[in-house]
């Protein structure tokens, strides 16, 4: 259940949408999957998280969203310590994640999916601002009565993003939003991110493999490798650094060896 | 003291029987992901086929046991091939199908043989004595057969290609299929192996204990118990758990009486299932 305790930086009033991740680590038995990861996500920030496979990107989202608890470190939202808050508790506080695979209520219609998202998140019947424009942009407005699992893959993923949007998140964690989308569909992710920034203004964390997308959308990125932060900064700068390139090449070499 | 050790010997022989029984059950769960509600039914079937072979066909007991194993194995094979294969991806549907099979089997046995317990005795009588410790000879023989069989199954699972293929299928059916292992060929065989083991246990144990159509229910419950305790899918765990259950049953029936031992065991396993759903050694539990 949600525990509310004042943060260490009490006195400095934090915006309720500020996410502070402090030196979190995750160990499975003796295996350190994650170590000393810290960052801040302020409302309006768009932070990209990249790294070779197995670097811990999905683990990061799992830990921040509450599906996993870290073994070390703290996570605070708006000054409240949420390190031990359960998954649904965090969702209710506004930390919302999307899923890599399509995630909708499959046999239900688009309309019903959205209705449920509204009802489960804040109980009222009103969708947040910018909903209609988003629906139109994603071409979902005229497909309201279709079953969500009959939609084409790309639209299902978009619906998943819409559901996250509908909850009026304070922090939005996107887990590979472009995965499985064709190149020409990826622009929709751009639209989504811009829309969120304009209408909701919450902080966003985007885990992605599509480097072009990251470059386009994220003013700041964080490179993870083997559960540690390898580099942080603007993408153009970070992605040119030798240690980052080495990490990716190293991963490529490992794959090559196995073949 | 002697009685304590002798009770322990009974516990061990019970444990080995349960281990053999649970082996089939846990194999099916590990490889197919199926909870086989008909497991008790195959135990009873094995017992009755052996009984019928001895009493109606005049077959010698060892042959009767072989027939029981064949009958259980073949029935299991056909059932998996023609019915279970259709829904094997959906675990709850497979469970319901095995339930349906169990009901049909019980009725078949009941109708064919009647509800009364037939006279089915083990061909070897007498007691083996070592100093002040004793164990009925039948238990000793059955114990040996069980140990040999369990050893054979271990060898099969860990030292042969067939066993390796089955274990690969257990880990990930799709990946294994992509590597050329044919589930549609192997699953019926795996199921048949499991049901044959249940039939074998029945053919061996029912002449010692009791043979009756209604035995399938408690046998199933005990199998559930053992396999949950040991961890669904873990062969080593099931074996260990079988011994624990055998010992508890032996000691509690001698020293406590009634079904208090069973009750304590059930409650213990229930708590264990909740705290540690993977049992003592089982695979990670991942929801449905």
């Amino acid at each position, binding site marked *: 259940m949600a525990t509310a305790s004042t943060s260490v930086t009490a006195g400095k009033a934090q915006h309720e949408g500020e996410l502070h991740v402090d030196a979190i680590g995750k160990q499975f038995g003796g295996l350190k999957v994650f170590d000393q990861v810290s960052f801040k996500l302020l409302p309006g920030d768009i932070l990209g998280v990249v790294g070779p496979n197995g670097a811990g990107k999905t683990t990061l989202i799992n830990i921040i969203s509450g599906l996993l608890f870290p073994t070390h470190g703290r996570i605070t939202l708006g000054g409240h310590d949420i390190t031990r808050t359960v998954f649904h508790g965090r*969702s209710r506080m506004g930390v919302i994640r999307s899923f890599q695979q399509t995630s909708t209520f*499959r046999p239900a219609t688009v309309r019903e999916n959205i*209705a449920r998202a509204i009802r489960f998140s804040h109980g009222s019947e009103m969708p947040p601002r910018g909903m209609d424009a988003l629906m139109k942009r994603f071409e979902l407005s005229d497909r309201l*009565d279709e079953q969500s699992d009959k939609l084409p893959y790309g639209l299902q993923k978009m619906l998943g993003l819409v559901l996250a949007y509908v909850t009026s998140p304070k922090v939005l964690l996107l887990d590979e939003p472009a995965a499985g989308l064709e190149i020409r569909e990826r622009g929709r992710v751009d639209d989504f991110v811009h829309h969120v920034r304009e209408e909701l203004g919450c902080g966003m964390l985007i885990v992605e493999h599509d480097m072009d997308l990251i470059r386009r959308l994220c003013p700041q990125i964080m490179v993870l490798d083997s559960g540690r932060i390898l580099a942080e900064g603007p993408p153009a700068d970070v992605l040119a650094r030798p240690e980052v390139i080495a990490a990716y090449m190293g991963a490529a070499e490992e794959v090559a060896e196995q073949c | 003291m002697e009685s304590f050790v002798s009770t322990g010997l009974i516990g061990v022989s019970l444990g080995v029987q349960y281990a053999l029984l649970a082996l089939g059950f846990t194999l099916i769960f590990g490889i197919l992901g199926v909870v086989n509600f008909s497991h008790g039914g195959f135990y009873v079937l094995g017992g009755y086929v052996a009984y019928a072979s001895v009493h109606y066909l005049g077959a010698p007991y060892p042959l009767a046991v072989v027939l029981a194993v064949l009958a259980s194995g073949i029935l299991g094979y056909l059932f998996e091939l023609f019915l279970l294969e259709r829904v094997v991806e959906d*675990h709850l549907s497979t*469970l319901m199908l095995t339930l349906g099979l*169990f009901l049909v089997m019980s009725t078949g046995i*009941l109708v064919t043989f009647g509800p009364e317990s037939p006279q089915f005795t083990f061909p070897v009588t007498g007691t083996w004595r070592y100093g002040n410790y004793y164990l009925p000879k039948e238990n000793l023989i059955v114990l040996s057969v069980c140990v040999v069989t369990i050893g054979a199954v271990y060898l099969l699972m860990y030292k042969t290609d067939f066993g390796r293929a089955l274990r690969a299928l257990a880990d990930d059916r799709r990946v294994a299929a992509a590597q050329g292992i044919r589930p549609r060929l192997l699953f019926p065989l795996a199921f048949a192996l499991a049901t044959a083991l249940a039939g074998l246990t029945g053919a061996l144990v029912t002449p010692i204990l009791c043979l009756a159509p209604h035995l399938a229910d408690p046998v199933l419950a005990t199998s559930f118990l053992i396999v949950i305790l040991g961890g669904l899918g873990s062969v080593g765990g099931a074996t260990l758990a079988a011994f624990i259950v055998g010992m508890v049953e032996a000691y509690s029936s001698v020293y406590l009486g009634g079904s208090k031992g069973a009750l304590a065991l059930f409650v213990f396993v229930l708590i264990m299932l909740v705290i540690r759903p993977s049992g003592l050694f089982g695979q990670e539990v991942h929801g449905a």
Partner: protein
Amino acid sequence: MTDRFRSFVRFCGAAELTSIGILVLAFGIPLLSSSPFLVSLVTQILIAIPAAFSVYVMLRMDLMTFAVPAFMAMGAYSAAIVGLRAGITDTIVLTALSFAVPALVALPLGALVLRLRGVYFVLVTFLLSQITQLLLFETPKLTGGSNGLAGMPATTLFGVALEDNRAVLFLAIALALLAAAITMVLTRYYRQHFAAIKENQILAESLGLVVWHYKMLGFAVAAGLAGIAGFSLVNMLLTAHPSSFSAMSSVDYIAYTIVGGAGSMFGPIVGSALLVTANNMFSNRGEYSPGFFGLLIIIVVLAMKDGIVGTAIKLAQRYRGRSRRIVLTPTQIPLQPAAAAEQTPVADQTVER
């Protein structure tokens, strides 16, 4: 007036109202026939119905429960113990008790057990039933042990003893109606929540649904429904005996629901009626009935996953040629006025998935 009526009907659901209607009509059976066989048969069906509803409620959360006999026993023995030991025979009190005791026990049990799903949940609930039956045998001071509790006093309503077969039938109808009403209110009011849990639990949680609350609620209500069935049973037999509550008997109630169709409240009623009648047909050859059940289960799982009611609805829809699928009643999204004009009116549903 008709608008409010229509929205009430839509809230309740056509299947639900049909179910309740049929149960109310059952009151007329003594007018049609005085055959004691028929009265007994219908009473048995009515005893099964709340138990089948218990399975149905759990299935709406994608949980297959084998614990119905355990909770039935709790309801049954509560009523029997209180009737025999404390002399309380008022129907309303006993009904409330037989619902409340299992429901309350279900709360701590649920806290332990509801984190499991799928086959693990099946095994745990099966063990629960096994344990309960063992407890009944092993606590003779409370439960009469293997003798059970015989000679229960007849239940009374406002002082009038309900003793003859007709009175027992009426009480069984009333209990089934109560169970139906409870099932209807629960499954309609929380339709979206249960459906979300069933279809994609983790998504529901990620959107903020406190899933375990609803699972606990469903589990407790299902336990209470089974308890009502237990009370109905001992009311007919005037005896509470452990043999009525074996773990394997859970299969019967599951069969009633899935053979009838787990997609709507009407399915358990159809399933109970059909299978209890079939069981009675085998009265001389009672040993055949489990085999028959087994065959039905196999057929339904392989060929008729939606059960009798669900399959019938699908066939009817295909015959009528409409392209309207069976879909959950959507909630209106108040879009902007321009968009609102484009919305199709919310379709009335006949049966829910």
